[in-house]
């Protein structure tokens, strides 16, 4: 015992002579604990090497902080970054193939819904469940920082989350000059008049961009009548099928149609609450305020 204690300072010395920066941070990282959405404490004593990341946002975040090689499986709706094509899929966004997950022997399974937690836990797997559907998009930075802690790559994560926040502030400051009386009204139709209300990620984005969501009184996503769309007369329409709006005589008198402001989102960035979400916000901001983003 005595010998060990004597050796200890020497060991530290050697360590500090080496790659001092990263190792010192490693010491600060672990153990790291997360409280999951069921109130359980999940402790990490080292970075997991084999992660089943059953969530598009988590996959994008891990790749963005350069820890993507830890992912051993995800679900089939995840399409970004292109590297995920090589990653095995264990089901789609609603059906997790638990047997396959167990067979992969992961040291962490990350899920966004409670459904599969008991089965995974019973199988002896380490499960981290974060109910991201309740999040607003600003929580994206918390998630980035959490993944930084879990993988021990705090540096990259902090940089990424800082740039996310900065980009949002930049957008906000550009839009800050828009006066409230000249606000645009907006509606997103995801198909068959299903629209996001105020308490959705899109609703929050509209709020940030200083536009009025004409479906603000819808809770979550809901189907509304074309009558309401015509009478509430949005200045801007976000849709996958702009043609439908331009060719349908019911909508000929809507401001958005008359002024040609019926837009298709240029990418899928706003459909995943991950690091690219802020780029999606900026894309939408450019569509709404082209003159402010030259």
């Amino acid at each position, binding site marked *: 015992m005595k010998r060990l204690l004597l050796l200890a300072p020497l060991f530290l010395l050697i360590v500090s002579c080496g790659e001092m920066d990263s190792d010192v941070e490693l010491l600060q990282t672990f153990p790291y604990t997360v409280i999951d959405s069921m109130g359980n404490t999940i402790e990490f004593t080292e970075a997991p090497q084999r992660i089943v990341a059953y969530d598009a946002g988590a996959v994008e975040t891990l790749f963005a902080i350069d820890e993507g090689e830890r992912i051993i499986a995800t679900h089939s709706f995840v399409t970004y970054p292109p590297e995920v094509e090589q990653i095995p899929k264990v089901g789609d966004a609603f059906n997790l193939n638990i047997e396959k997950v167990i067979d992969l022997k992961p040291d962490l399974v990350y899920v966004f819904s409670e459904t599969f937690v008991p089965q995974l836990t019973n199988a002896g797997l380490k499960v981290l469940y974060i109910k991201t559907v309740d999040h607003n998009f600003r929580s994206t930075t918390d998630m980035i920082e959490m993944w930084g802690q879990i993988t021990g790559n705090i540096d990259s994560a902090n940089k990424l989350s800082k740039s996310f926040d900065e980009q949002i502030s930049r957008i906000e400051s550009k839009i800050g000059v828009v006066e409230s009386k000249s606000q645009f009204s907006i509606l997103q139709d995801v*198909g*068959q*008049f*299903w629209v996001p209300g105020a308490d959705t990620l899109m609703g929050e984005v509209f709020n940030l961009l200083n536009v009025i969501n004409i*479906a603000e*009184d*819808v809770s979550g996503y*809901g*189907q*509304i*009548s*074309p*009558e*309401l769309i*015509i*009478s509430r*007369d949005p200045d801007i329409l976000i849709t*996958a099928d702009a043609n439908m709006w331009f060719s349908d*005589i*019911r909508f*000929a*008198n809507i401001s958005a149609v008359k002024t040609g402001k019926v837009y298709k989102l240029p990418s899928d960035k706003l459909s995943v609450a991950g690091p690219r979400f802020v780029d999606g916000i900026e894309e939408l901001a450019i569509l709404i305020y082209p003159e402010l983003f030259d």
Partner: protein
Amino acid sequence: MNYPWKRLILFLIIVLIVVIFSLGIGSVKIHPMDVLGILISKLFYLDVAWEWSDTMEIILWEVRLPRVLLALFVGASLTVAGSIYQGLFRNPLADPYLIGAAAGAVLGATIAMLVLSLSSMVDLLSISFFAFTGSLITVLAAYLIARSSGGIQTYPLILSGIALGSFAAAISTLIMIRSDPDLRPILSWTLGSFAGARWTHVVIVSVVFCAVLPFGLVYARILNLFQLNEEHAKQLGVNVERSKILMIVVATLVTATAVSFTGLIGFVGLIAPHTVRLLWGPDYRVLIPMATIIGGGFLVLADLAARTLFLPNDLPVGILTALCGVPFFLYLIRQRNF
């Protein structure tokens, strides 16, 4: 026999009033005078003394009126189909939804939508045709399975209809899930809705309905004979097999056309004919026209509730018909010893 013309006309007028009344109510308020003015100017090309905004005119003429009329004709279609099925199969529980016709139609329409868009009239007609084919296959299969189990009794037909309907619905769902994400909104078809109603739909559904209704009226006499005894009908010179096939085809055609634009709306074809039966007896010559009028009016009211109860949300009307229809169905099962 004393044909109850007065009663028929009275109910026709009541349903007309229901239609006009429900045109005045919706997620957007339109003044009753404006409703009247728009209808007069659009229908009769007359100028009226007061004015309204273009927005009101579009909402009433392009959104609300086609929706109300589609509900009316779909309700009437499902009722005439239900009445014919009930008489033909001598099965008081034969509703287009319960014998699998509706689910078969949705499967056919889903397959059609894999290859077609929804824009042109030709596409819409092809969807109806696919729906009809799917529906006919399901109904015939249910009928043959029930017959092979020993005569057309009440429960075998309903059981095989429900089973085949579930099977068709499962395949439709599978196709939607495995296909391009753009088909997924059709999932809401499992509980039908009139939210997407257009004039083109109204035209197709009403034309098919108007073509099928006379068959129902002409064959009402034969349906009456069937209720007593098929042999008896044969002796009176009725070609039983040919009549049966023709009636299956027309009832299925009118079901499939209605369902292919709205999705599954259950129990309408059960509620209306039975209400008439309970009130005025089982004579098909009275039952078919009377039930058709009541079924149309009922679905207009059900859709009025669907589009106004939980504003701003638009509910699938199939929820409401099931909520009304299932207790009615259970009542029927308990009341009579089928």
